[in-house]
């Protein structure tokens, strides 16, 4: 089943075309990543799918409904984490979740959500006393409390320290294993690589590449070999890494010297991403 279908979506703000005719589909149970630098059109796209913004052209279906015409029944089935976390500062974590739980017909128990987002110890603390990362997790909890089928996460870990990001990733993986469909935007490549089944790379409102992260990185066949020779860094790109590496090490062994700082690596999504966005720049 298709959870999200977008065909030739367009949106302009005055002169600026923020989204220039993009198409993609997200299947039920899939984690889909919209990846791109700031200003690429990620948030505009997501806010159209969430029903916040009107599109200029194109077709959009989210859970079988046009979000521009959606009602409360449709909102029962989606969960939203916006880019900035807004809450009632004077309420406690549990109170905040109870308030939101009350908006849904079949909410998850509040204590279960508190545990799911790892705020057990902060359960009875006022929201205003939470750290940035804890607020973000509470925000995720607010999106989950209605037990939605589809969850939108707009840059869920921006500004997190590495430990907090790991924990957030674990939570998001947990949602995936519950069968939730997730649409995630991020400008962190490792995040997309870690979480998404498929990604679309967005640049200046256009999709410049899409597919599973492994496939995107696989599209670049070359392996990179780096080492230092006489204090200078040598970088080789090859599609025959075994042969090249063998020759290199053979030569070094016969000369009785070490290949300093030897690194052999597959291209990361980051390399692909940079090459894609550079191509787009050059056009």
């Amino acid at each position, binding site marked *: 089943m298709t959870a999200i279908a977008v065909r030739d979506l367009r949106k302009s703000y005055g002169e600026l075309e923020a989204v220039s005719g993009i198409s993609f589909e997200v299947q039920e149970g899939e984690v889909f990543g919209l990846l791109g630098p700031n200003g690429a059109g990620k948030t505009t796209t997501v806010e159209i799918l*969430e*029903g*916040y913004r009107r599109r200029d052209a194109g077709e959009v279906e989210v859970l079988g409904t046009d979000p521009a015409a959606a009602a*409360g029944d449709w909102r029962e089935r989606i969960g939203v984490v*916006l880019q900035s976390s*807004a809450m009632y500062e004077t309420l406690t974590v549990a109170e905040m979740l109870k*308030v939101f739980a009350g*908006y*849904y017909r079949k909410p998850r128990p509040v204590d279960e959500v508190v545990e799911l987002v790892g705020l057990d110890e902060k359960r009875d603390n006022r929201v205003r006393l939470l750290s940035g990362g804890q607020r973000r997790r509470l925000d995720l909890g607010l999106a989950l409390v209605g037990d939605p089928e589809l969850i939108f996460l707009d840059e869920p870990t921006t500004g997190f320290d590495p430990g907090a990001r790991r924990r957030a990733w674990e939570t998001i993986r947990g949602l995936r294993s519950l069968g939730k469909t997730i649409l995630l935007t991020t400008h962190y490549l490792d995040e997309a690589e870690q979480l998404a089944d498929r990604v679309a790379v967005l640049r200046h409102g256009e999709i410049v590449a899409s597919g599973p992260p492994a496939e995107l990185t696989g599209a670049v066949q070359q392996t990179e070999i780096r080492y230092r020779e006489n204090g200078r860094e040598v970088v080789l790109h090859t599609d025959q890494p075994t042969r090249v590496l063998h020759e290199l090490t053979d030569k070094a062994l016969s000369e009785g010297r070490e290949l300093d700082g030897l690194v052999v690596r597959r291209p990361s999504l980051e390399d692909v991403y940079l090459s894609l966005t550079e191509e787009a720049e050059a056009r």
Partner: protein
Amino acid sequence: MRLLWHELKTELLLYTRSRELAFFTFLLPMIFYVLLGSTYGKDTVDGVKGTRFLEAGMIGYGAISIAFAGLAIVLVIRRENGILKRLRATPLPAWIYISSVLGAFLLAFAVEVIGLVVIGRVLFGVALPDRIGSLVLALLLGAVSFCGLGIGVTSLMRSAEGASAVVNAIYLPMSFISGSFFSPRHFPSVLRAIADVLPLTYFLRLVRNVMLHGHEIWTQGTNVAVVAAWGLAGVIVALRSFRWEPHEG
């Protein structure tokens, strides 16, 4: 119905948790009543005892503090920090949200009125109001109209920081000019001319005519009409330009 009750409870909880609202819009009218009542309460103002005159004045001041100023500031803060936008992503219907917010502020005003009447009775020996039916209708009309103006005025404000400055600049002079604290009878003619268009002036006349002079609300056509017209104007502005999303950047 369940949803309305849930949201009304939420709003009441939020109201009681807010120190700023509790002090500036809720306690301040009572404090002023005690202070001013102790100062010139024994004088005769416009033919009635000062404390009686003030009681009605402080009810008018309470109405504009809570229903206009408090409501407008709360809505702007919630809009600018993104809570209104966040709520739009939930199944909570807009009309339930707005009704609950209004409900909470109207209840706060009702408690305020009771507080002022109790202070008047206990501290100053002011008789309890009769004409209860007319009084309740008059207060409801005023509070709802000021709520309408409060929602309408949110369109003028672009930031949470500026909200209380703009609101204070409107309602504090209005409370003074319209005669909440003193009889406007001896004000300079310029001030009286300004007072003649302000909604609080007509609301105060209405409340004083009912509370102090025993008139029923249906004899107060002009006062009722002007207060209602102002409220309606606020609602029309709100319907045309109310926004749920913050002003970005």
